[in-house]
């Protein structure tokens, strides 16, 4: 993926492309509005000019063989109604100026007969729009050609043009902003199934291996299908691993237990001391193997189950009671008394019972293992929140420099060479605590020598 450069936002791409389209349309709209509106305005000015010139041409008459013109008031006043433009006119009969401004140029060019001819030219330091209208007149049976030129500056036109530009700009900008806002909304809307899907996948956390069932747009169906297939395979693989571990634990432990029982039976029957010694060493080795195998499997189990935590509501007091009842035979062997100290009110924690039992058993097992004979272990439930499942012994305690690294895998205390151990017990406890959002606390027993180990769990 990194080859493709920085991450690309689909929404941004959508919005940018839609905004570009909107900008293009706005500009096109601006120009077409200007072209059309200015064309219309110019046509209007031309029409008024032509009307003015035509009404002057109509007012040309002959009086006793003399051509005269009486310019109608409206012919020029109509040009002053909408703007304050300068107006010039000229009436020509057979090339001779009859009245008006002698130097006013006559628009020239091709045109159909008797149609007004327009031109734009410079005159008297200004730009003028001019029209010439022709008319035939018969004077004493002689045909005469009357031309009327009317010219007007383009001040009004410029004012209208600037208004049109302002309006077109305003509309264009408004269109662009509206279109961009709408396209942002549209992009958001179009991508909302994607966001919902992403949110659903993100929210489920790394341990949820249920298939994705969030509403899926058609375009994303293959992706979600692929994802669900992947999840299913992963889930199946994990289940197989768990089965394998359970199976392995069973397969390793059961024969070892058989070997131990047989060894003990033989030990009772042996009479020669060195044989008994050898058998004791064998039993011890079997214990060690059994324990190590058990803890390795426990650890693997904890790691696995932590990834797919299946929580339920548990009374932590039950956990403690259960652990004590399981381990009291071992403690009895060493004449260790276990005291359980539970609070009045019932507590509740949310957790995986198998993992929590495992963790509590590991703590208590450690305490029994490192306690000298004929001592006392106090198991305490300290209500929280968070609540503490605390086990305090009167053993050798922890060396201060060990505390930080003890929970690491295969790490053991510097003062425990004489005791069988795998270095996994506290690692399991810590992993379980972390999987439940809690912590492992290790410290010295405040009531005399020994250690206190607490499993801290969020409770309610």
């Amino acid at each position, binding site marked *: 993926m990194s080859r493709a450069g920085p991450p690309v936002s689909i929404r941004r791409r959508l919005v940018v492309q839609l905004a570009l389209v909107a900008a293009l349309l706005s500009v096109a709209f601006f120009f077409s509005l200007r072209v059309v509106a200015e064309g219309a305005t110019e046509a209007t000015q031309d029409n008024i000019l032509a009307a003015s010139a035509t009404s002057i041409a109509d007012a040309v008459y002959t009086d006793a063989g003399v051509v005269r013109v009486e*310019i109608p008031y409206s012919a020029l006043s109509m040009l002053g109604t909408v703007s304050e*433009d300068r*107006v010039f006119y000229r009436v020509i009969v057979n090339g001779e100026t009859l009245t008006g401004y002698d130097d006013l140029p006559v628009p020239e060019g091709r045109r159909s007969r008797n149609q007004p001819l327009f031109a734009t030219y410079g005159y008297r330091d200004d730009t003028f729009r001019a029209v010439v209208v022709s008319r035939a007149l018969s004077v004493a049976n002689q045909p005469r050609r009357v031309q009327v030129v009317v010219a007007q500056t383009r001040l009004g036109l410029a004012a209208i043009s600037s208004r049109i530009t302002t309006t077109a700009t305003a509309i264009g900008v408004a269109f662009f902003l509206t279109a961009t806002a709408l396209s942002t909304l549209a992009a958001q809307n179009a991508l909302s199934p994607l966001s919902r899907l992403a949110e659903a996948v993100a929210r489920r956390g790394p341990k949820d291996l249920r298939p994705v069932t969030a509403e899926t747009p058609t375009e994303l169906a293959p992706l979600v299908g692929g994802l669900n297939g992947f999840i299913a395979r992963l889930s199946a693989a994990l289940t197989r691993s768990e089965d394998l571990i359970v199976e392995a634990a069973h397969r390793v432990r059961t024969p070892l237990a058989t070997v131990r029982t047989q060894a003990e039976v033989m030990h009772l029957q042996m009479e020669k001391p060195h044989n008994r010694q050898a058998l004791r060493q064998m039993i011890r080795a079997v214990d060690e193997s059994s324990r190590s195998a058990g803890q390795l499997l426990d650890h693997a189990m904890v790691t696995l189950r932590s990834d797919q935590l299946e929580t339920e509501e548990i009374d932590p007091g039950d956990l403690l009671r259960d652990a004590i009842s399981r381990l009291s035979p071992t403690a009895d062997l060493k004449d260790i008394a276990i005291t359980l100290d539970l609070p009045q009110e019932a507590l509740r924690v949310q957790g995986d019972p198998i993992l929590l039992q495992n963790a509590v058993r590991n703590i208590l097992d450690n305490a029994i293992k490192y306690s000298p004979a004929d001592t006392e272990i106090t198991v305490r439930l300290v209500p929280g929140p968070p609540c503490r499942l605390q086990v305090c012994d009167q053993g050798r305690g922890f060396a201060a420099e060990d505390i930080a690294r003890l929970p690491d895998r295969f790490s053991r205390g510097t003062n425990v060479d004489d005791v069988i151990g795998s270095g996994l017990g506290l690692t399991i406890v810590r992993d379980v605590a972390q999987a439940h959002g809690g912590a492992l606390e290790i410290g010295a027993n405040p009531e005399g020598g020994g250690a206190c180990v607490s499993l801290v769990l969020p409770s309610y």
Partner: protein
Amino acid sequence: MRLACLALLLSVAASLALAFELEESRSYPGTGPGHLRILSTADVDVFEPIIHAFQARHAVSITYDVASSAQVMIALYDEGAEYDLAISSAMDLQTKLANDGLAQTYSSDATALLPPWAKWRDQIFAFTQEPAVLVLNAAAFEALAVPTNREGLIALLRDHPEAFDGRIGTYDVRVSGAGYLFATQDSRNTESFWRMTEVMGRLNTQLFCCSSDMIDAVASGRLLLAYNVLGSYARARLADTPGVLVVEMDDFVSVMLRTALIPQTAKAPEAAGLMIDFLANMRLRPELVAQTGLPPVVSASGEDKGVIRPIRLGPGLLVFLDRMRRDTFLRSWVSSIKQD
């Protein structure tokens, strides 16, 4: 073009020499630098209070030259005389100056506040609005019904030819710019204009150059009636001239705007601009309005409302300046008004 215009103006006053003629010229030295030269059609007496009030605020020297509107046109249009401000009651000639590119553009806060009809192209600025009125001799009309419209006036003149014969006055539109403007607007506004001119012509109407002469003649009893007199002059004279009635017609009243423009030849356009601002704000100085008798431009009153017909600045005014149209109009008018 020059020749054409010259021909036009020569037909107005054929006896005039090429150089324009001043009726009066007066200097008002100021305490500060700068010199504002005004060419105006308004009498010195009328304008003097404005000059003094203006100099009280701006310390420039002012030369105030008075000429007829036709002479103002000759000075600015044909001879390119150097003036900083041209003030004229002939709106049509002022419009032509601006249209033909002989006026400078000017704008300021004061001109921006002028109503749209009181300015054109930011080159012509109106500062008074003066209606054309009928002035009557009060004594003579004790026995006669006062006419309130032109039809009534025609009927009155027809019914009493012996009383009015030789005792009617109006502008000689061949010499008076304002008179020509009022007459042409009348011809545009009412069908009865030519009939009325015919009737007036049969009664040997006296022709005058100026409103004040007509008012004098009515006051003295030489005239019973003067038609199309500048209302501002007539009202100003009411106080010290007993026996004069001023009547605004109720069919329509032409309202002329007295306008100012800065010619292209101006040497002190800034000072001229200050004077235009001052004139545009005349309505804020009632004492000056009272002294001059010039009704200031008021926003609301310039709109076309029924009988009040303000003469509209714009290219329409160029129509009656067309040499052929003017020629035709004057010939018709002369043949109607002079029937002997």
